[in-house]
C-alpha cells in the first residue's frame, strides 16, 4: 500500500571500510542497479577502492571530503562514520545504508530479500507509535489492526526511520560474541513493527534507511570512543546517533520501525580481540541510556535541526562533566547542525 516511489528519490549510501567491493557490488547488483549509489571511502583507508563496472554511482574519497568540509572537519568521517558524509551530500528524499560486509539475505522460503524495497515500504507506510498492535505492522498484506485498537490512532504517523536486522552475524557486542563464538542468527522473524513512542532501543547502523528530508540532520557522527576501531564491535557511534534520532522522532511525532528487511552479515573480525577496545562502549551505555530516557525537548523545538541542537545542549550540561568524550560529542552535534545547514541543505550538486 505504499505510494509509488520513483527510483530517483532514493540514494544508496555505502561506507567503504574495505577496499575490495567487487563481491559486495556483484551480490547486490540486481537489487541496487536501478538506483544511484554514493560510495564513501573511509578517509583512513589507504588502498584504492575496487568497484565493478555497470552501476550508477559517485565515489567520495578523502580529497573530496576535504574539499567539501575542510581538512580539519573531515576527521569526523573516519571509520564507520564515513557514511554520514554520504547522507550529508545526498540530495534525495530517501537514503538506504548498509555496511560493506552485508549481503542480500534469503527469507524463510529461500527467496532473495529485496532490502531496498522493504525499507521503502517501511518508510512510505505509516508508523503506529502510540499503541501497540499485537499483529505487528497493520499495513502489511494479510494483517490489520486488532480488536481494541483505537480508531483515532489507525491513520498512524509518518515513518522517518526503518531499522533492519541481520542473519548470520548478528549485531552483538564483543563480550556476547566472545562468550558464544559459534552463535549465528538463523531466525527469520517475518515482521515489521513500530517502536513505541518514548521507548528507546539500540539502533544499529548496519542496515538502516531513513527519510532524509524529514530526519536527515539527526543521523550524525558525534560520539567517538577513545579506542574506536574498524569493526562494529569497536564502535558506539551508531547507537548514540540512534538514541538522538529516536528522541527527536518521539518529540516530532514521527515513527521508527524495526524488523525486516534482513541482510546477511558476513563473519568478520575477532570478538575477543575487540573486547579490550569495546569495554569503553559497554560501560558508556550505562550512562547513555538513562540520560536519553530522561531527555525532554522544548515546545519551541519544531524542526529536526532545533531538536538536535537542544539535545546537544543537554548532553553538554548533564554528561559533559562526566567524561570528556561526551563534551566532545555535544560539540560535534552542534558542529554537525551547522555543517548540515551549510552543506546538507544547499542546492549545489555534489562533487564527482
Amino acid at each position, binding site marked *: 500500500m505504499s505510494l509509488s516511489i520513483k527510483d530517483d528519490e532514493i540514494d544508496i549510501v555505502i561506507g567503504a571500510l574495505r577496499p575490495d567491493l567487487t563481491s559486495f557490488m556483484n551480490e547486490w547488483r540486481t537489487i541496487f542497479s536501478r538506483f544511484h549509489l554514493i560510495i564513501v571511502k573511509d578517509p583512513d583507508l589507504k588502498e584504492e577502492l575496487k568497484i565493478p563496472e555497470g552501476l550508477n554511482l559517485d565515489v567520495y574519497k578523502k580529497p573530496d571530503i576535504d574539499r567539501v568540509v575542510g581538512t580539519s572537519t573531515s576527521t569526523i568521517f573516519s571509520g564507520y562514520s564515513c557514511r554520514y558524509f554520504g547522507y550529508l551530500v545526498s540530495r534525495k528524499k530517501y537514503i538506504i545504508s548498509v555496511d560493506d560486509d552485508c549481503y542480500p539475505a534469503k527469507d524463510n522460503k529461500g527467496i532473495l530479500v529485496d532490502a531496498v524495497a522493504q525499507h521503502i515500504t517501511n518508510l512510505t507506510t505509516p508508523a503506529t507509535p502510540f*499503541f501497540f*498492535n499485537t*499483529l505487528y505492522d497493520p499495513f502489511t498484506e494479510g494483517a490489520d489492526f486488532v*480488536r481494541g485498537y483505537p480508531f483515532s490512532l489507525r491513520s498512524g504517523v509518518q515513518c522517518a526511520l526503518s531499522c533492519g*536486522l541481520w542473519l548470520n552475524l*548478528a549485531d552483538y557486542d564483543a563480550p556476547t560474541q566472545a562468550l558464544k563464538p559459534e552463535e549465528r542468527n538463523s531466525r527469520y522473524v517475518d515482521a515489521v513493527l513500530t517502536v513505541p513512542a518514548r521507548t528507546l532501543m539500540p539502533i544499529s547502523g548496519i542496515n538502516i534507511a531513513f527519510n532524509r528530508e524529514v530526519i536527515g540532520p539527526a543521523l550524525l557522527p558525534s560520539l567517538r570512543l577513545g579506542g574506536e576501531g574498524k569493526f562494529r564491535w569497536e564502535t558506539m557511534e551508531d547507537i548514540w546517533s540512534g538514541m538522538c534520532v529516536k528522541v527527536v522522532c518521539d518529540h516530532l511525532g514521527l515513527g521508527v520501525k524495526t524488523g525486516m528487511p534482513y541482510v546477511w552479515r558476513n563473519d568478520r573480525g575477532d570478538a575477543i580481540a575487540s573486547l579490550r577496545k569495546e569495554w569503553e562502549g559497554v560501560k558508556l551505555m550505562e550512562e547513555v541510556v538513562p540520560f536519553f530516557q530522561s531527555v525532554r525537548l522544548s515546545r519551541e523545538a519544531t524542526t529536526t535541526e532545533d531538536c538536535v541542537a537542544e539535545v546537544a545542549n543537554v548532553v553538554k550540561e548533564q554528561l559533559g562533566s562526566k567524561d570528556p568524550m561526551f563534551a566532545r560529542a555535544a560539540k560535534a552535534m552542534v558542529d554537525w547542525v551547522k555543517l548540515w545547514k551549510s552543506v546538507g541543505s544547499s542546492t549545489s550538486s555534489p562533487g564527482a
Partner: protein
Amino acid sequence: MADPATISPSTLLKDELDIVIPTIRNLDFLEMWRPFFQPYHLIIVQDGDPSKAIKVPEGFDYELYNRNDINRILGPKASCISFKDSACRCFGYMVSKKKYIYTIDDDCFVAKDPSGKDINALEQHIKNLLSPSTPFFFNTLYDPYRAGADFVRGYPFSLREGVPTAVSHGLWLNIPDYDAPTQLVKPLERNTRYVDAVMTIPKGTLFPMCGMNLAFDRELIGPAMYFGLMGDGQPIGRYDDMWAGWCTKVICDHLGWGVKTGLPYIWHSKASNPFVNLRKEYKGIYWQEELIPFFQSVTLPKDCTSVQKCYIEIANQVKAKLGKVDDYFNKLADAMVTWIEAWDELNPSGASKSSDLPNGPSK
C-alpha cells in the same frame, strides 16, 4: 499417569498451573489438546443456562462452576461476575489456588508451526513466564533469553537481568482477532503469517490484550485480571479482555513486571458473527477513545505497593474521570472494588501459595 513418552519439561509445572476455560457449548476441542493439557488441572466456568450439562471429555482432571455455583460462592459479590459473556472466566482465576493460569477459548485448537509440527502452546507460555522480561529498553532481536538470540550491541548490561514476567500474550493463526468493522470489511482475511518472535511490550506502552490464548502469573498479577461487566444487562461486550489488559499493563508498569506478546500461536477456528459483534462493541468503539488517554495518563502513587492497592486506586480514578463518560463506568468502578473484596476473601494472604494443596476431583 502420563505416558513417559509424552512427558515434556513443562509438565514439571503441572501442579502449579490451572487451565481456565469459559464455555457455553461443549468442550470437544479438548480432545485435540489432550496430549498437552491432560497433565493439568482444568477449571471450567460454565456460562449461560446452569441447567445445561456440559460434557467434559474423559480423562481430564477438572472442577466446573456454573452460575449457581458462582452465586453460591460469592453471594451478593457475584454481581461483579458477568453473565452471558466469556468475561465470566475471571471467576476461574479467583477460585484457582495455583501460581499460574492459562486461559483459552473453546474454539481455539492446536496450530502447526512452519515445519508442520504441532505447537504446544502451553509449553511456550510457561517458557515465556519463567524467563524474564525486558520492558525498559527494546531489544531489536526480540526475546534475548530464547535459544539462538541474545541482547544486541548497545544494550546496557545492568538491564540484562530483566524483570519477572507477569503475562504471556499469545497470538492466533487463521481467524484473527479483529473488531466488527474490520471483520465486515475483510470477512475472508486469515492470518497465515507465523512470526517467530516473543517480545516484551515496553514500559509505558499499552496494547489490546486478547483473552483467547493468555497465560499469567496469578500470584503476581491475578487481582488485576478482572474482566469487567459485560454481556447480559450491560451496554457493552467484547471489551472484557481489553479492560483487564489495560489495568494489568498499568499495574505491571508501576510494579516493575513484564508483559510478553508473540508466540505461541493457536488455531482460531470460529469467526463470530460480525453483526452481533458490532452491536456488542458499538459503545466500546466510542468509549475507547476516552479510555486510552485515561489509561495512558493514569499515575499510581508510590504507596500503591500491592496489586490490590493499585487496582483500587484505578477503580477510584475510573469513577472520578470516566463516570462522566457514561454511568456504566460508575458501576464498573464499583464492580472492580467488589472484585478485589471477593478476591481477598477467597484468597486470604498466606493461603495463596498453591504447593500444598492436592489437585481437584479425581478423573
